[in-house]
């Protein structure tokens, strides 16, 4: 899969290729989404977008359009959100290794926000100016999740982290129509962001953390006003201890506590109060 950074006017644009694992990540990020076409790139000097094209007859590469563009403003419902675009461009630049120098990289990230906002017609929630961060944390209340067998067995770690009982064993992305299709940090993160989980605090929001058992499963933690983290391993009881039996608080947190097979720490996120999941 070939990536061309459309940025220069006189010089040839930087071009590089994704390796197998990067192609898989590209599929996670872009499959099933409405993608911009190279013709949609704005006519301007400096960063215009990244054009990705299949350059093998590999079946995996045919799951995406032959040529498509990233980092370009779009108006369709299934398009990448501004945050997803910023994240995707940032990731693509990381895959470029020595092909793109730091100066170009900085220019791209600065120009990207401007490009994404300039074509916006209707106000989009993710492009509004960030509201002030108002962390909203509530006390640990495991009884709510544990006392009733139906509630306990039909609500999972995602229900717990978002603090929304649905009795559907909620899955990231199912509410917004783009459930994750693989068990990687990138895929589950993208699905959660699609649902409305935020990558940084920009409103009245709860702090949560995502970890992944690569190829197997994901798990979430939620921070409580008591000063520790709670979590609910699947259908089992909500708890505030890790796999060593230690309370996840003080110097212990989701990044350094015993997480059993969930070896990958994907990051911290923020859940708007009242967020719906399914």
């Amino acid at each position, binding site marked *: 899969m070939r990536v061309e950074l459309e940025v220069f006017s006189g010089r040839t644009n930087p071009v590089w290729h994704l390796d197998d694992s990067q192609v898989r990540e590209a599929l996670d990020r872009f499959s099933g989404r409405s993608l911009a076409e190279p013709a949609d790139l704005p006519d301007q000097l400096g960063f215009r977008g990244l054009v990705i094209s299949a350059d093998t007859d590999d079946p995996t590469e045919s799951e995406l359009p032959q040529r498509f563009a990233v980092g370009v403003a779009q108006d369709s419902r299934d398009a990448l959100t501004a945050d997803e675009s910023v994240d995707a461009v940032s990731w693509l630049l990381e895959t470029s290794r020595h092909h793109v120098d730091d100066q170009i990289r900085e220019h791209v990230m600065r120009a990207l926000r401007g490009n994404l906002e300039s074509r916006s017609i209707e106000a989009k929630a993710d492009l509004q100016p960030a509201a002030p961060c108002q962390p909203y944390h509530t006390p640990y209340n495991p009884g709510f999740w544990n006392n009733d067998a139906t509630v306990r067995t039909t609500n*999972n*770690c*995602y229900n717990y982290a978002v603090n929304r009982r649905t009795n559907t*064993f909620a*899955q*990231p992305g199912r509410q917004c129509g783009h459930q994750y299709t693989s*068990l990687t940090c990138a895929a*589950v993160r993208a699905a959660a962001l699609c649902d409305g989980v935020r990558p940084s605090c920009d409103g009245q929001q709860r702090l949560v953390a995502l970890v992944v*058992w690569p190829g*197997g*499963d*994901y*798990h*979430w933690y939620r921070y409580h006003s008591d000063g520790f983290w709670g*979590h*609910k*391993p*699947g*259908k*089992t*009881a909500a*708890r505030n*201890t*890790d*796999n060593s039996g230690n309370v996840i608080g003080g110097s212990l947190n989701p990044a350094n506590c015993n*997480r*059993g*097979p*969930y070896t990958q720490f994907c990051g911290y996120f923020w859940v708007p109060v009242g967020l719906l999941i399914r």
Partner: protein
Amino acid sequence: MEIELDVFSGVPNPRWTLSGAEARRLVALLPATPEPEREGLGFRGFVLHNPEREFGLPDVVELGPGTGELAAFLTAQAIHHGYAHLL
């Protein structure tokens, strides 16, 4: 009758159906007192789902990881169904 492998947190647990012979074998291996499930992340044990309440057993029986022959039977079942990597 179905066996559920209680291992995941976000994704639903794997499950498979027992044949008549497998169900009879399993019931013969059940302990007098149920063993508690392990807690926390990762493999915690097995759960027997028995909606028809066959063999005079409840509709849900928590089996934990099991011990001895029961553990061997359940482990073999899980491996046979492709879940060795989750144990």
